[in-house]
């Protein structure tokens, strides 16, 4: 080993003396000295131009520190901006939503104004849909407390939506026209050909059945409620005919009707609560 050899040779005395000498010198050459030694002056003078040149050339490297410090600031600023962008996006989104809602409500208002001479109407919001696939119904946020009753007719700005089939104090379940149980007496607007419109159980189309083989109906003609059946008032828009075919028995015809109402996007509806004046449901 090196250390024991060092000690063995007795050099430790030299070592201790050297340490003592160095400490003494260091002690006596503290911070403030009156005169530098020749060697120190020479060294400093030799290094001075080198240091000055290096400082000038490498001053750009000082930017490294600034770069990293700036990097931290940038990260913070980026995080702040990301948050701000998210907030603004949310705001834009909610404004868009408000704009769309505004447009829908305007249409609904127009519909309400159209219906108001004959009917008392109550606007309601759709708050839920049927959780099962077997029925087509929606839940609205008005119920018995608002004066709603079973079999009241529900419409929106596009036309007939359905009728109320169940009520709670604050909600009502509306059976949509799409449901097989929601058959409506109807007629073709132009030819006044009567029939019945019913849901097909699945899909988004309705079927108009039971009209005579020789009835004068064509595609794209509008189908309205006929007022027959005691629930739905006459004249409400249902949809338009897209396809006409002969029923399997060969005696009657049936037609496929595309409803005006987009049942997938129902948000606001109007409930026809009470007829006004002399209007009466047949």
């Amino acid at each position, binding site marked *: 080993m*090196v*250390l024991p050899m060092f000690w063995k040779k007795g050099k430790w005395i030299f070592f201790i003396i050297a*340490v003592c*000498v*160095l*400490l*003494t*010198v*260091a*002690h006596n*050459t*503290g*911070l403030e*000295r009156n005169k*530098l*030694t020749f*060697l*120190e002056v020479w*060294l*400093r003078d030799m*290094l001075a131009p*080198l*240091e000055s040149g*290096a*400082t000038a050339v*490498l001053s750009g*490297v*000082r930017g*490294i*520190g*600034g770069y*990293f*410090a700036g990097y931290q600031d940038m990260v913070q600023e980026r995080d702040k901006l990301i948050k701000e962008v998210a907030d603004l996006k949310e705001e834009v989104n909610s404004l868009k939503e408000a704009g769309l809602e505004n447009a829908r409500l305007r249409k609904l208002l127009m519909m309400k104004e159209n219906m108001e001479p004959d009917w008392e109407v109550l606007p309601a919001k759709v708050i839920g849909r049927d959780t099962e696939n077997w029925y087509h119904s929606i839940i609205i946020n008005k119920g018995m407390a608002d004066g709603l009753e079973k079999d009241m007719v529900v419409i929106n700005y596009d036309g007939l939506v359905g009728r109320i089939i169940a009520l709670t104090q604050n909600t009502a379940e509306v059976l949509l026209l799409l449901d097989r149980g929601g058959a409506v007496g109807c007629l073709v607007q132009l030819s006044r050909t009567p029939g019945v419109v019913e849901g097909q159980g699945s899909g988004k189309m309705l079927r108009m059945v039971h009209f005579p083989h020789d009835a004068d109906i064509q595609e794209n003609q509008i189908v309205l409620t006929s007022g027959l059946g005691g629930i739905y008032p006459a004249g409400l828009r249902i949809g338009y005919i897209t396809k006409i075919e002969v029923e399997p028995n060969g005696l009657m015809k049936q037609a496929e009707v595309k409803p005006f109402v987009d049942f997938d996007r129902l948000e606001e509806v109007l409930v026809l609560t009470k007829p006004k004046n002399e209007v009466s449901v047949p």
Partner: protein
Amino acid sequence: MRYFVFFATIIISIVLQSSISFFNLGIQPDFLLILVLFSALLEGPFTGLKVGFVIGLVEDLVTGKFIGIHILTKMLAGYLIGLGEPKIFKENYLVPVVTLFIGTFLHGFLFLFFGSIVGIDISWGKDIWVRILYLALFHGVLAPFVYVPFYKIYVSKWFNKDS
């Protein structure tokens, strides 16, 4: 050639150390200490001692304060780190990292110890140890980048030429 490169490296280290501000961390890498520690690592305690003496002397003369303190601390650090020289595999990259980390800590400790004896005003407390720890970590990170060129020069033929 060896001596020329050695002194040139010392001058470059001093110039770099006094010219560049690294990372605004409040600590400067001690290239001269790194030179002592790597020399000791490659050649053993007596080279560590000798290199420590020369570099310490130059540093003392340049700083012009408490002359002898750097000689003492660098010599001792070089000597003690050099004691590990026969036992380690120098081509492992972890060796310079550990060497610089331990060596820097050791040097810091020696500087505080002898500095307090000769009258350097040291503000004792947690901060001073944290500062040494930061420097040791910093040297540890720098180690592979400095050691590779250092080792290549050290083993190169022209470095070992007599003339």
